[in-house]
Protein backbone atom coordinates (compact mmCIF):
# COMPACT_ATOMS: atom_id res chain seq x y z
CA UNK A 1 0.00 0.00 0.00
CA UNK A 2 1.41 3.38 -0.99
CA UNK A 3 2.39 5.57 1.92
CA UNK A 4 0.50 8.82 1.84
CA UNK A 5 2.14 11.83 3.43
CA UNK A 6 -0.43 13.52 5.62
CA UNK A 7 -0.07 16.95 7.22
CA UNK A 8 0.27 16.68 10.96
CA UNK A 9 -2.92 17.78 12.68
CA UNK A 10 -2.55 20.97 14.69
CA UNK A 11 -4.19 21.30 18.10
CA UNK A 12 -6.95 23.31 16.40
CA UNK A 13 -7.43 20.60 13.73
CA UNK A 14 -7.71 17.97 16.47
CA UNK A 15 -10.20 20.06 18.43
CA UNK A 16 -12.21 20.65 15.25
CA UNK A 17 -12.26 16.93 14.40
CA UNK A 18 -13.33 16.10 17.97
CA UNK A 19 -16.06 18.74 17.79
CA UNK A 20 -17.34 17.52 14.39
CA UNK A 21 -17.40 13.94 15.68
CA UNK A 22 -19.32 15.13 18.75
CA UNK A 23 -21.87 16.75 16.43
CA UNK A 24 -22.21 13.50 14.44
CA UNK A 25 -22.90 11.51 17.61
CA UNK A 26 -25.36 14.14 18.72
CA UNK A 27 -27.20 13.90 15.39
CA UNK A 28 -27.48 10.11 15.61
CA UNK A 29 -28.60 10.36 19.27
CA UNK A 30 -31.22 12.92 18.32
CA UNK A 31 -32.47 10.76 15.42
CA UNK A 32 -32.87 7.84 17.81
CA UNK A 33 -34.67 10.23 20.15
CA UNK A 34 -37.00 11.23 17.29
CA UNK A 35 -37.67 7.54 16.57
CA UNK A 36 -38.45 6.93 20.25
CA UNK A 37 -40.64 10.03 20.37
CA UNK A 38 -42.63 8.97 17.27
CA UNK A 39 -43.03 5.31 18.29
CA UNK A 40 -43.10 5.43 22.09
CA UNK A 41 -46.52 3.78 22.32
CA UNK A 42 -45.68 0.94 19.90
CA UNK A 43 -42.25 -0.05 21.22
CA UNK A 44 -41.97 -3.00 23.59
CA UNK A 45 -40.38 -2.39 27.00
CA UNK A 46 -37.27 -4.22 25.83
CA UNK A 47 -36.96 -2.21 22.61
CA UNK A 48 -37.48 1.02 24.53
CA UNK A 49 -34.85 0.04 27.06
CA UNK A 50 -32.28 -0.87 24.37
CA UNK A 51 -32.89 2.28 22.34
CA UNK A 52 -32.87 4.67 25.27
CA UNK A 53 -29.71 3.05 26.68
CA UNK A 54 -28.08 3.36 23.26
CA UNK A 55 -29.14 6.98 23.06
CA UNK A 56 -27.61 7.68 26.47
CA UNK A 57 -24.36 6.03 25.33
CA UNK A 58 -24.33 8.05 22.09
CA UNK A 59 -24.87 11.26 24.03
CA UNK A 60 -22.13 10.30 26.44
CA UNK A 61 -19.76 9.78 23.48
CA UNK A 62 -20.93 13.06 21.96
CA UNK A 63 -20.08 14.87 25.21
CA UNK A 64 -16.70 13.11 25.35
CA UNK A 65 -15.87 14.40 21.87
CA UNK A 66 -17.14 17.87 22.84
CA UNK A 67 -14.33 17.94 25.38
CA UNK A 68 -12.23 18.81 22.31
CA UNK A 69 -9.60 16.35 23.43
CA UNK A 70 -6.17 16.49 21.80
CA UNK A 71 -5.57 12.82 22.50
CA UNK A 72 -7.85 11.68 19.73
CA UNK A 73 -5.21 11.11 17.06
CA UNK A 74 -2.83 8.18 16.76
CA UNK A 75 -0.34 6.90 14.20
CA UNK A 76 -2.19 5.86 11.06
CA UNK A 77 -5.44 7.44 12.24
CA UNK A 78 -5.98 9.63 9.17
CA UNK A 79 -7.54 7.04 6.80
CA UNK A 80 -9.83 5.76 9.56
CA UNK A 81 -10.90 9.29 10.46
CA UNK A 82 -11.48 10.06 6.79
CA UNK A 83 -13.71 7.00 6.40
CA UNK A 84 -15.74 8.09 9.45
CA UNK A 85 -16.07 11.66 8.15
CA UNK A 86 -17.08 10.40 4.70
CA UNK A 87 -19.74 8.07 6.11
CA UNK A 88 -21.42 10.45 8.57
CA UNK A 89 -23.89 12.05 6.16
CA UNK A 90 -24.72 8.68 4.59
CA UNK A 91 -25.48 7.24 8.04
CA UNK A 92 -27.61 10.14 9.28
CA UNK A 93 -29.50 10.29 5.95
CA UNK A 94 -30.18 6.55 6.16
CA UNK A 95 -31.46 6.65 9.76
CA UNK A 96 -34.07 9.21 8.72
CA UNK A 97 -35.61 6.64 6.36
CA UNK A 98 -35.31 3.44 8.39
CA UNK A 99 -38.52 2.14 9.93
CA UNK A 100 -37.45 -1.23 11.35
CA UNK A 101 -36.56 -1.13 15.05
CA UNK A 102 -34.00 -3.91 14.57
CA UNK A 103 -32.15 -1.85 11.93
CA UNK A 104 -32.07 1.23 14.17
CA UNK A 105 -30.70 -0.89 17.03
CA UNK A 106 -28.11 -2.45 14.74
CA UNK A 107 -26.94 0.92 13.39
CA UNK A 108 -26.69 2.50 16.83
CA UNK A 109 -24.64 -0.48 18.07
CA UNK A 110 -22.27 -0.10 15.12
CA UNK A 111 -21.94 3.67 15.61
CA UNK A 112 -21.18 3.08 19.31
CA UNK A 113 -18.46 0.63 18.18
CA UNK A 114 -16.94 3.32 15.96
CA UNK A 115 -16.76 5.73 18.91
CA UNK A 116 -15.18 3.08 21.11
CA UNK A 117 -12.62 2.48 18.32
CA UNK A 118 -11.76 6.18 18.05
CA UNK A 119 -11.40 6.69 21.79
CA UNK A 120 -9.37 3.51 22.29
CA UNK A 121 -7.26 4.40 19.21
CA UNK A 122 -8.16 1.06 17.63
CA UNK A 123 -8.22 1.48 13.83
CA UNK A 124 -9.47 -2.05 12.99
CA UNK A 125 -12.38 -1.63 15.44
CA UNK A 126 -13.30 1.66 13.72
CA UNK A 127 -13.19 -0.06 10.31
CA UNK A 128 -15.17 -3.18 11.29
CA UNK A 129 -17.85 -1.21 13.18
CA UNK A 130 -18.23 1.20 10.28
CA UNK A 131 -18.49 -1.71 7.83
CA UNK A 132 -21.27 -3.25 9.95
CA UNK A 133 -23.20 0.04 9.91
CA UNK A 134 -22.79 0.43 6.16
CA UNK A 135 -23.95 -3.16 5.58
CA UNK A 136 -27.13 -2.42 7.51
CA UNK A 137 -27.90 0.75 5.59
CA UNK A 138 -26.84 -0.69 2.21
CA UNK A 139 -27.55 -4.45 2.43
CA UNK A 140 -27.08 -5.07 -1.32
CA UNK A 141 -23.52 -3.72 -1.50
Amino acid at each position, binding site marked *: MATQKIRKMTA*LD*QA*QFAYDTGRFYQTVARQIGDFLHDNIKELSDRQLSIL*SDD*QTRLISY*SNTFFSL*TEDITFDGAAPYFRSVTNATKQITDAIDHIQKVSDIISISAGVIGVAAGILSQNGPLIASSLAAVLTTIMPDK
Partner: protein
Amino acid sequence: MSKTISQILLAGFVLISLCSCTDLKEINAFALTGQQAMEKGKGISYGFEKYSVDSSYVFHPFPDQLKDVDCTCTQQKKLDVLNKKEYQILSDYFGALALFTDPKSSIDITPVGDAVQSGTYAGITISDDESSITATLSGFLTDAVTTGYKSKKLKQIIKLYHDSVVTLIAFMKLRSDALVGEIENMQEILRTNTDKLLRTADKNETKWSLLFTYELQKKEWDGKLAMYKDFDSDFDKITAGGNLIYQNMNNLKSKDFKKKLNTIIRNLIYNGDTKN
Protein backbone atom coordinates in the same frame (compact mmCIF):
# COMPACT_ATOMS: atom_id res chain seq x y z
CA MET B 1 -26.14 51.40 32.61
CA SER B 2 -28.71 49.37 30.73
CA LYS B 3 -27.60 47.33 27.73
CA THR B 4 -29.78 49.40 25.40
CA ILE B 5 -28.29 52.72 26.51
CA SER B 6 -24.82 51.25 26.31
CA GLN B 7 -25.56 49.98 22.79
CA ILE B 8 -26.89 53.38 21.69
CA LEU B 9 -23.80 55.10 23.11
CA LEU B 10 -21.53 52.64 21.32
CA ALA B 11 -23.39 53.10 18.03
CA GLY B 12 -23.13 56.88 18.47
CA PHE B 13 -19.45 56.65 19.29
CA VAL B 14 -18.82 54.45 16.27
CA LEU B 15 -20.77 56.84 14.02
CA ILE B 16 -18.80 59.82 15.33
CA SER B 17 -15.65 57.84 14.74
CA LEU B 18 -16.76 57.01 11.19
CA CYS B 19 -17.45 60.67 10.54
CA SER B 20 -14.12 61.90 11.88
CA CYS B 21 -11.27 62.81 9.58
CA THR B 22 -8.65 60.28 10.55
CA ASP B 23 -7.56 57.86 7.85
CA LEU B 24 -8.03 54.89 10.13
CA LYS B 25 -11.48 55.68 11.39
CA GLU B 26 -13.01 52.46 10.00
CA ILE B 27 -10.44 50.30 11.75
CA ASN B 28 -10.96 52.32 14.91
CA ALA B 29 -14.73 51.77 14.67
CA PHE B 30 -14.21 48.04 14.04
CA ALA B 31 -11.89 47.80 17.05
CA LEU B 32 -14.39 49.56 19.31
CA THR B 33 -17.20 47.30 18.15
CA GLY B 34 -15.00 44.21 18.58
CA GLN B 35 -14.11 45.29 22.09
CA GLN B 36 -17.78 45.78 22.96
CA ALA B 37 -18.57 42.27 21.65
CA MET B 38 -15.80 40.74 23.77
CA GLU B 39 -17.03 42.57 26.86
CA LYS B 40 -20.47 41.09 26.21
CA GLY B 41 -18.96 37.63 25.82
CA LYS B 42 -17.17 38.07 29.13
CA GLY B 43 -20.50 38.86 30.75
CA ILE B 44 -22.29 35.64 29.72
CA SER B 45 -23.73 34.30 32.94
CA TYR B 46 -24.63 30.74 31.90
CA GLY B 47 -21.29 28.98 31.54
CA PHE B 48 -19.77 25.60 32.28
CA GLU B 49 -20.52 25.77 36.02
CA LYS B 50 -24.25 26.39 35.61
CA TYR B 51 -24.44 23.80 32.84
CA SER B 52 -22.80 21.25 35.14
CA VAL B 53 -25.24 21.97 37.97
CA ASP B 54 -28.17 21.44 35.56
CA SER B 55 -26.67 18.39 33.88
CA SER B 56 -26.02 16.61 37.18
CA TYR B 57 -29.81 16.50 37.70
CA VAL B 58 -30.66 15.60 34.13
CA PHE B 59 -28.10 12.83 33.73
CA HIS B 60 -28.97 11.30 37.14
CA PRO B 61 -32.75 11.70 37.15
CA PHE B 62 -33.56 9.12 39.82
CA PRO B 63 -31.15 9.64 42.73
CA ASP B 64 -31.53 7.93 46.09
CA GLN B 65 -30.51 11.12 47.86
CA LEU B 66 -29.81 14.74 46.97
CA LYS B 67 -26.11 14.22 47.58
CA ASP B 68 -26.03 12.03 44.46
CA VAL B 69 -26.75 15.06 42.28
CA ASP B 70 -24.58 17.58 44.09
CA CYS B 71 -22.03 19.35 41.93
CA THR B 72 -19.09 21.04 43.61
CA CYS B 73 -18.13 22.21 40.11
CA THR B 74 -14.67 23.48 41.11
CA GLN B 75 -13.15 22.65 37.73
CA GLN B 76 -16.10 24.13 35.86
CA LYS B 77 -15.77 27.38 37.83
CA LYS B 78 -12.10 27.49 36.92
CA LEU B 79 -12.94 26.93 33.26
CA ASP B 80 -15.43 29.81 33.35
CA VAL B 81 -12.73 32.04 34.87
CA LEU B 82 -10.24 31.05 32.15
CA ASN B 83 -12.86 31.68 29.47
CA LYS B 84 -13.49 35.17 30.86
CA LYS B 85 -9.75 35.77 30.90
CA GLU B 86 -9.56 34.96 27.19
CA TYR B 87 -12.45 37.34 26.47
CA GLN B 88 -10.55 39.95 28.50
CA ILE B 89 -7.37 39.40 26.47
CA LEU B 90 -9.30 39.86 23.23
CA SER B 91 -11.14 42.88 24.63
CA ASP B 92 -7.73 44.37 25.48
CA TYR B 93 -6.45 43.52 22.00
CA PHE B 94 -9.33 45.36 20.32
CA GLY B 95 -8.93 48.21 22.82
CA ALA B 96 -5.25 48.46 21.90
CA LEU B 97 -6.13 48.35 18.19
CA ALA B 98 -8.54 51.24 18.78
CA LEU B 99 -5.81 53.21 20.56
CA PHE B 100 -3.26 52.51 17.82
CA THR B 101 -5.70 53.88 15.25
CA ASP B 102 -6.82 56.82 17.37
CA PRO B 103 -4.91 57.54 20.58
CA LYS B 104 -7.79 59.78 21.68
CA SER B 105 -10.15 56.80 21.99
CA SER B 106 -11.53 56.76 25.51
CA ILE B 107 -10.37 53.29 26.46
CA ASP B 108 -8.53 52.18 29.53
CA ILE B 109 -6.62 48.92 29.21
CA THR B 110 -5.26 46.87 32.05
CA PRO B 111 -3.73 43.78 30.46
CA VAL B 112 -4.27 40.50 32.30
CA GLY B 113 -0.51 40.07 32.27
CA ASP B 114 -0.14 36.32 32.07
CA ALA B 115 -1.19 33.38 29.92
CA VAL B 116 -4.18 31.10 30.27
CA GLN B 117 -2.78 27.84 31.59
CA SER B 118 -3.22 24.77 29.39
CA GLY B 119 -4.84 21.65 30.77
CA THR B 120 -8.11 19.76 30.97
CA TYR B 121 -10.74 21.44 33.07
CA ALA B 122 -14.00 19.60 33.72
CA GLY B 123 -13.37 17.46 30.65
CA ILE B 124 -12.65 20.43 28.38
CA THR B 125 -9.16 20.77 26.96
CA ILE B 126 -7.20 24.01 26.66
CA SER B 127 -4.26 23.10 24.45
CA ASP B 128 -0.64 24.22 24.77
CA ASP B 129 -1.09 26.05 21.44
CA GLU B 130 -3.99 28.06 22.82
CA SER B 131 -2.12 28.83 26.04
CA SER B 132 0.90 29.97 24.04
CA ILE B 133 -1.26 32.36 21.97
CA THR B 134 -2.65 33.97 25.12
CA ALA B 135 0.94 34.39 26.40
CA THR B 136 1.96 36.12 23.15
CA LEU B 137 -1.03 38.46 23.22
CA SER B 138 -0.69 39.27 26.92
CA GLY B 139 3.00 40.04 26.43
CA PHE B 140 2.31 42.33 23.48
CA LEU B 141 -0.49 44.17 25.29
CA THR B 142 1.61 44.72 28.42
CA ASP B 143 4.38 46.10 26.20
CA ALA B 144 1.93 48.35 24.33
CA VAL B 145 0.63 49.85 27.59
CA THR B 146 4.21 50.46 28.74
CA THR B 147 5.65 51.92 25.55
CA GLY B 148 2.57 53.75 24.29
CA TYR B 149 0.38 53.41 21.22
CA LYS B 150 2.69 54.53 18.45
CA SER B 151 1.25 54.37 14.97
CA LYS B 152 4.39 52.72 13.61
CA LYS B 153 3.37 49.62 15.55
CA LEU B 154 0.03 49.41 13.77
CA LYS B 155 1.20 46.84 11.24
CA GLN B 156 2.62 44.75 14.05
CA ILE B 157 -0.72 44.60 15.85
CA ILE B 158 -2.57 43.83 12.61
CA LYS B 159 -0.10 41.04 11.87
CA LEU B 160 -0.66 39.79 15.41
CA TYR B 161 -4.34 39.50 14.52
CA HIS B 162 -3.49 37.13 11.68
CA ASP B 163 -0.93 35.13 13.67
CA SER B 164 -2.68 34.86 17.02
CA VAL B 165 -6.11 36.45 17.38
CA VAL B 166 -7.78 34.48 14.57
CA THR B 167 -6.63 31.19 16.07
CA LEU B 168 -7.61 32.21 19.61
CA ILE B 169 -11.08 33.19 18.37
CA ALA B 170 -11.32 29.81 16.59
CA PHE B 171 -10.48 27.99 19.84
CA MET B 172 -12.96 30.10 21.83
CA LYS B 173 -15.68 29.62 19.23
CA LEU B 174 -15.14 25.84 19.26
CA ARG B 175 -15.40 25.77 23.05
CA SER B 176 -18.52 27.90 22.97
CA ASP B 177 -20.00 25.62 20.27
CA ALA B 178 -19.07 22.57 22.34
CA LEU B 179 -20.96 23.98 25.34
CA VAL B 180 -23.94 24.59 23.06
CA GLY B 181 -23.69 20.94 21.96
CA GLU B 182 -23.64 19.78 25.58
CA ILE B 183 -26.68 21.89 26.46
CA GLU B 184 -28.51 20.44 23.43
CA ASN B 185 -27.55 16.92 24.54
CA MET B 186 -28.94 17.66 27.99
CA GLN B 187 -32.19 18.80 26.37
CA GLU B 188 -32.33 15.55 24.40
CA ILE B 189 -31.96 13.44 27.56
CA LEU B 190 -34.67 15.52 29.23
CA ARG B 191 -36.99 14.88 26.27
CA THR B 192 -36.43 11.11 26.28
CA ASN B 193 -36.81 10.83 30.07
CA THR B 194 -40.01 12.89 29.97
CA ASP B 195 -41.42 10.75 27.17
CA LYS B 196 -40.58 7.54 29.03
CA LEU B 197 -42.21 8.81 32.24
CA LEU B 198 -45.31 10.00 30.36
CA ARG B 199 -45.65 6.52 28.85
CA THR B 200 -46.00 4.93 32.27
CA ALA B 201 -47.76 7.75 34.15
CA ASP B 202 -51.40 6.86 34.71
CA LYS B 203 -52.71 9.94 36.53
CA ASN B 204 -53.48 13.20 34.76
CA GLU B 205 -51.98 15.28 37.55
CA THR B 206 -48.67 13.41 37.16
CA LYS B 207 -48.73 13.88 33.38
CA TRP B 208 -49.47 17.59 33.76
CA SER B 209 -46.64 18.02 36.25
CA LEU B 210 -44.19 16.24 33.93
CA LEU B 211 -45.31 18.24 30.91
CA PHE B 212 -45.16 21.57 32.72
CA THR B 213 -41.69 20.90 34.17
CA TYR B 214 -40.43 19.80 30.74
CA GLU B 215 -41.74 22.89 28.94
CA LEU B 216 -40.44 25.26 31.60
CA GLN B 217 -36.93 23.80 31.54
CA LYS B 218 -36.83 23.55 27.76
CA LYS B 219 -37.78 27.22 27.36
CA GLU B 220 -35.07 28.28 29.80
CA TRP B 221 -32.38 26.35 27.92
CA ASP B 222 -33.69 27.53 24.54
CA GLY B 223 -33.03 31.08 25.77
CA LYS B 224 -29.42 30.22 26.71
CA LEU B 225 -28.87 28.52 23.36
CA ALA B 226 -30.20 31.54 21.45
CA MET B 227 -27.80 33.78 23.37
CA TYR B 228 -24.82 31.56 22.51
CA LYS B 229 -25.81 31.41 18.85
CA ASP B 230 -25.81 35.22 18.72
CA PHE B 231 -22.28 35.30 20.06
CA ASP B 232 -21.26 32.68 17.53
CA SER B 233 -22.34 35.10 14.85
CA ASP B 234 -20.24 37.88 16.48
CA PHE B 235 -17.16 35.64 16.38
CA ASP B 236 -17.67 35.06 12.64
CA LYS B 237 -18.06 38.77 11.85
CA ILE B 238 -15.05 39.77 13.97
CA THR B 239 -12.93 37.11 12.28
CA ALA B 240 -14.07 38.34 8.85
CA GLY B 241 -13.36 41.99 9.76
CA GLY B 242 -9.92 41.22 11.14
CA ASN B 243 -9.00 39.14 8.11
CA LEU B 244 -10.15 41.93 5.82
CA ILE B 245 -7.91 44.42 7.64
CA TYR B 246 -4.97 42.01 7.47
CA GLN B 247 -5.45 41.38 3.76
CA ASN B 248 -5.56 45.13 3.12
CA MET B 249 -2.75 46.01 5.52
CA ASN B 250 -0.91 47.91 2.77
CA ASN B 251 -4.03 49.39 1.29
CA LEU B 252 -5.96 50.74 4.27
CA LYS B 253 -7.17 53.84 2.41
CA SER B 254 -8.90 51.89 -0.37
CA LYS B 255 -12.57 52.82 -0.77
CA ASP B 256 -13.56 49.22 -1.44
CA PHE B 257 -11.86 48.06 1.77
CA LYS B 258 -13.53 50.79 3.83
CA LYS B 259 -16.93 49.96 2.35
CA LYS B 260 -16.60 46.25 3.15
CA LEU B 261 -15.37 46.93 6.68
CA ASN B 262 -18.22 49.37 7.34
CA THR B 263 -20.71 46.65 6.32
CA ILE B 264 -19.17 44.25 8.85
CA ILE B 265 -19.25 46.94 11.56
CA ARG B 266 -22.92 47.70 10.87
CA ASN B 267 -23.79 43.99 11.05
CA LEU B 268 -21.95 43.66 14.36
CA ILE B 269 -23.81 46.65 15.80
CA TYR B 270 -27.13 45.31 14.46
CA ASN B 271 -26.46 41.93 16.04
CA GLY B 272 -25.70 43.68 19.33
CA ASP B 273 -29.02 45.55 19.10
CA THR B 274 -31.04 42.39 18.49
CA LYS B 275 -29.59 40.82 21.65
CA ASN B 276 -31.08 43.45 23.91
